[in-house]
C-alpha cells in the first residue's frame, strides 16, 4: 500500500481548534462569531474532501505529530475507514452549525459563545479519532470528546442538567479510565505497540505466548471501556444526556460521541484483534449476540417512551448495536453493512433530532402524545421526519435499507440464522415506535384536551427547517447514490479480511 506523507489530517483537526480562538474573541458579536463557526466547518469539510481522491486511489495518508514516549506517538493515518467517518462528521457539522444558530437564537439560550466553542473542540477531537494511527492517539481524542461535550450536555446548568451531565461523565470517563486504559496497558504490554494494523495487532503476534484467556479479557475490557458505543448495560448515560439542547443531542447521537464509540469498537475489532483472530476465539459471535440483545431490548424500551427525545435516544442505542453487530459478524458483507450504517444512521438520526428540536422551538412540545395533527402545522418538518423514520426502519427507497441488506447478507455468510431473526424482529419494533408518530402527526386531529403551550404553531425558523430538509434529502440520496461511501466500505472490508 502506497503511503503519502501529508499534514492534511492535522489541518483537518486543527482548523476548528484555531476557530475556537476567533469564536472566543468575537463573543460579543454573534454574527461574526457564527461566521467563524461556519467557516471552520466548511474549511474542515473541504480539507477532508481533498484527501478523498488519494484514499480512493488506494493510498494512505500518514502524518506523525510527535512522540511522547517511545512507543507512544501522536500520529495520524487517513485510510478508508477514517475518511469515511471524517466525511460524515465534518459534513454534518456544517448542517448542525446552521441548525444550531437557528436554535440557540430563537430560544435565546445563555452562554452561546461557550456553546459554540465546545462544539468546535468536540469536532476537532472527532476528526482526531477518525484519523488516529494508533490506540493511544485514539484514547487521547476519545477523552477530549468526553470532556469537551460535558459543558454542552450541562448547558442549561439546571440541577437536572447537571445531574444528567454528571452521569454522562461518570459513565464515559469512568469506563474509559477503568477499562479502556487497562486494555491499552495490556495491549502494549503484550504486543509492544499500539499502532493499528490492517490484520490486527494481536493477529500479528499470534502464537507468541499470548494466552487465549489474556486475549478474551483484553477484548472484554476494550468493549466495556468504550461506553460511547452505548452497548447495554452501559447505555444509560445516553437517555440521561437528553437534557442537552437539541442540536447537542443531534451532534451527540449522530456524529461526535456515539459514532466515535462504535468507530472505536470497529477499530478494536478490525485493527487491534483482527478478523481472523476473533473468528478463531469465537469472540465475534459472542459480541454479535451481545449486540443483538441490546438491539431488541432497547427497541422494546423505545416503544414505551412518551418523551420524543427519549424515544429517539433508545432508538439510537438500538441502532448503534447494528454497527457493532455487523462488524462482529466478521464477514465482508457484515463489515460493509456495519460501516455503511455509520453514515446512514448518522443522516437519519440527525434529521430526527433536528425535527424534535424544530417541534420544540415551534410549539414547545416534547411528548409523543402531544403531536396529534402536527403534520399539518409543520409539514416540512414532519415530512423530513417521515423520510428519516422510514430509513431507520430500513425500508427502501431510504438509505437505511442498504445497511440492513448488507447486514442480512453478512449474517447469511456467517451462517448465523438467529441474527437474521434479530434483524427482522428489530425492524418490526422500529416500525412499532416510529409509525404511530407519523400516523398521529398526519392523520389525527389535534387533541383539544391538551393545552397548546403556544397559541399558534408555525414552522420553525428557516435555518432549522432548511437543515433538516437537507439531511432528509441526504437520506434519500444515499439510497440512490451511495457510490463513494459504498466504495469506501467495500475497500475497508476487503483490506481487513485479507482481500477475499
Amino acid at each position, binding site marked *: 500500500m502506497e503511503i503519502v506523507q501529508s499534514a492534511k489530517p492535522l489541518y483537518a483537526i486543527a482548523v476548528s481548534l484555531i476557530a475556537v480562538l476567533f469564536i472566543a474573541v468575537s463573543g460579543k458579536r454573534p454574527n461574526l462569531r457564527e461566521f467563524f463557526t461556519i467557516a471552520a466547518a466548511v474549511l474542515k469539510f473541504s480539507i477532508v474532501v481533498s484527501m478523498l481522491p488519494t484514499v480512493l486511489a488506494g493510498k494512505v495518508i500518514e502524518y506523525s505529530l*510527535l512522540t511522547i*514516549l517511545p512507543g507512544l506517538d501522536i500520529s495520524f493515518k487517513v485510510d478508508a475507514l477514517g475518511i469515511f467517518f471524517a466525511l460524515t462528521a465534518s459534513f454534518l457539522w456544517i448542517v448542525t452549525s446552521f441548525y444550531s444558530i437557528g436554535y440557540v437564537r430563537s430560544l435565546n439560550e445563555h452562554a452561546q459563545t461557550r456553546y459554540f466553542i465546545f462544539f468546535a473542540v468536540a469536532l476537532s477531537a472527532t476528526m482526531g479519532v477518525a484519523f488516529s494511527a494508533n490506540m493511544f492517539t485514539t484514547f487521547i481524542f476519545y477523552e477530549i470528546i468526553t470532556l469537551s461535550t460535558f459543558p454542552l450536555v450541562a448547558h442549561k*446548568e439546571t440541577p437536572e442538567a447537571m445531574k444528567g451531565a454528571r452521569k454522562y461523565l461518570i459513565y464515559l*470517563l469512568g469506563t474509559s479510565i*477503568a477499562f479502556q486504559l*487497562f486494555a491499552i496497558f495490556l495491549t502494549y504490554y503484550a504486543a509492544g505497540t499500539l499502532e493499528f494494523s490492517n490484520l490486527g495487532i494481536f493477529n500479528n503476534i499470534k502464537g507468541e505466548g499470548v494466552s487465549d484467556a489474556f486475549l478474551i479479557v483484553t477484548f472484554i475490557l476494550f468493549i466495556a471501556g468504550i461506553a460511547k458505543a452505548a452497548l447495554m448495560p452501559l447505555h444509560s448515560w445516553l437517555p440521561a444526556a437528553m437534557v442537552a439542547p437539541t442540536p447537542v443531542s443531534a451532534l451527540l447521537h449522530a456524529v461526535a460521541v456515539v459514532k466515535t464509540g462504535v468507530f472505536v469498537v470497529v477499530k478494536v475489532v478490525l485493527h487491534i484483534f483482527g478478523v481472523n483472530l476473533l473468528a478463531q476465539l469465537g469472540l465475534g459471535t459472542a459480541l454479535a449476540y451481545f449486540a443483538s440483545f441490546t438491539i431488541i431490548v432497547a427497541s422494546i424500551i423505545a416503544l414505551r417512551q412518551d418523551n420524543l427525545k427519549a424515544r429517539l435516544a433508545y432508538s439510537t442505542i438500538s441502532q448503534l448495536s447494528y454497527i457493532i453487530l455487523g462488524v462482529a459478524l466478521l464477514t465482508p458483507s457484515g463489515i460493509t453493512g456495519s460501516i455503511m450504517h455509520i453514515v446512514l444512521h448518522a443522516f437519519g438520526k440527525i434529521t430526527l433530532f433536528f425535527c424534535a428540536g424544530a417541534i420544540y422551538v415551534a410549539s414547545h412540545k416534547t411528548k409523543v402524545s402531544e403531536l396529534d395533527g402536527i403534520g399539518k402545522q409543520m409539514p416540512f418538518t414532519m415530512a423530513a421526519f417521515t423520510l428519516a423514520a422510514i430509513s431507520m426502519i430500513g425500508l427502501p427507497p431510504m438509505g437505511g435499507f442498504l445497511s440492513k441488506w448488507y447486514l442480512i447478507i453478512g449474517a447469511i455468510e456467517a451462517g448465523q440464522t438467529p441474527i437474521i431473526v434479530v434483524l427482522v424482529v428489530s425492524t418490526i419494533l422500529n416500525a412499532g415506535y416510529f409509525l404511530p408518530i407519523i400516523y398521529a402527526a398526519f392523520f389525527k386531529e389535534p387533541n383539544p384536551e391538551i393545552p397548546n403551550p403556544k397559541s399558534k404553531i408555525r414552522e420553525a425558523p428557516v435555518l432549522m427547517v432548511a437543515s433538516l430538509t437537507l439531511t432528509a434529502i441526504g437520506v434519500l440520496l444515499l439510497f440512490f447514490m451511495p457510490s463513494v461511501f459504498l466504495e469506501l466500505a467495500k475497500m475497508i472490508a476487503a483490506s481487513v479480511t485479507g482481500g477475499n
Partner: protein
Amino acid sequence: MINITEHLPVLIIVISLMSAAIIPIAGRFNRHYSWYITVAVTFVSFLISISLLNRVLNTGKISYWLGGWQPPWGIEYVLDYLNIFILLIVSFIAFIVSLYARHSIEKEIAEHKISTFYSVYMLFIAGLMGMTLTGDLFNLYVFIEISSLAAYTLIAVGRKRNALMASYNYLILGTIAATFILLGIGYLYMVTGTLNMADLRELLPPLYESKVVLTAFAFFTVGLSLKLALFPLHIWLPNAYTHAPSVVSAIMAATSTKVGAYVLLRIMFTVFKVEFDLEVVPVTKILLVLSSVAIIAGSVLAIAQTNIKRMLAYSSVGQIGYIVLGAALINQTAMTGSLIHILNHAIMKGTLFLVIGAVVYKTGIEDISGLRGMGKKMPYSMAAFTIAALSMIGIPLTVGFVSKWYIAMGALNAGMWYFVPIILLSSLLTAVYFWRIIESIYFEDANTEPQNAEYSQIRNPDDAPLGMLIPTLILAGLCLFFGVAAFLPVSIAEKAASMLLGGM
C-alpha cells in the same frame, strides 16, 4: 585562583545557608529586601543545579570532597543521575514558590515576622538540598534536622492557632523519625566504622544477615516512611498542610516528602543493594501492600474532605503511595515511573496549592465552597487549577498520565497485574474529588453571602496579582509541557532508575 565551577556542589548549599543569616539583617533595613534576596538566591541555586545537570550528563557522576578531605574520612558530596534530578526539582520549585510568596506572605503572616519567615524558608531549602546532595550518612542526618526544624517553624506561623498544634504534632513525630534514622546510622557505623554511603555499600554485603544491620535497616525504613508520610505514618501531614501558610503548604507538598522518598530510595538501593531488599528482608512486599493501601485510602479520605487544603493533603498521601509502589516493584519501568512521579507530583501539587493560595489571598476561604463560580472571577488561576486537576486524574497529554503509564507498565512487566486496577481505581477516585470542584468552579454561581469586608474586592472579575499568577501559570504550563515532551525528564529518570537497580 579557585575554579568556582569545581565547588558548585557545595556552593549551592552554602549560599542558601548564608542567605538565611543575611535575610533577617537585610529585613531590618527594608522588609522588601528579604524577599528580593530569597528570590535571587533560589534563582542562583536553580542555575547552579542546571549547570550541575550539564556536568552530570557529560561525566556521569560528580564527587566533591568537602574541604578536600578524601572519603571515606571526609564528607563527600556525590551527584549522580538520581540526585541531580531531585536537586533540579527542589531548586526549581523553591524558586517558583519564592517568586510567588511575596503577596501571599504579606497577607497571611504578620508584618514583623516576614523577614524571619524568609530566613527559615531558606534554611528549609538548604536542608532539603543538603539531604539530596550528600553522600555521607551523618551529614544526611544533619540536613534532615535542619529541614525538619525549619519545617516545624514554617508550619507554626500559619494564620490560625491550629497551626501551632499541627506544628507540634509534626515536631513530635518528626523527632521520632529523626531519632530512628539516627539510630540506624549509629548501628551501621557500629558494625562498619564508616559513614560514607559508597563505602557502606561495599562493606555491608558480608554483614547482611547480621541482626544489627537488619535492625538498622528497619529503623531507616520506619523513620523515613514517617518523613515521607507513607500510610499509615501520614497522620502528621494533613494537619500540617492544612494549617500552614499557603506558600508553605505548596513548598512542602512539592518538595519535602519528595526528598524523603529520595532518601528512602538512596538507603534502600545504594547504601544497601537490590539483592538485600529482594532476598534478605521482605521490605518490598511490605511496601507494596502499604503503598497500595496508601493510594486507595488517600484518595478515599480526600473525597471526604471539605477543606480544600486538607483534601489536597490526603491526595498527597495517595500520590506518595504511587512513588513508593513504583520503587517497590523493583524493575526498570516501574522505577522510572516512580522517579518521574516525584517530578510530576511536585509540579501538579505545587500548582494546586499555589492556586488555592491565590484564592485564599482573594477571598480568605479555604473551603471547597469558596471555589464556587470562581471560573468567571479568577479565570487564569482556575484554568491552572483545571489543568493540574486533569493531570492528577491522569488524562493523557498531562504529566499525570506519564507516571501512571510507567508504573502500570512496570506492574505488568513484574507480572503483578493486580496493581493496575489499583492505579486505575485511584484515578477514578481522584476524578471524583477533583471533578466536583471543577464543576462548582465553572457551573455554579459564586457565593453571594456577605463576605469579610477585607476581601470584598472579589465581586468583580479580578484574578490574583501577576506576581502570584505567573508562577502558578508556569507550573501549570509544565504540567502540559512535560506531559507532551515527556521524554526530556524520562530520559534522566531512566538513567537514574537503571543506576539504582544495577549498581552505582
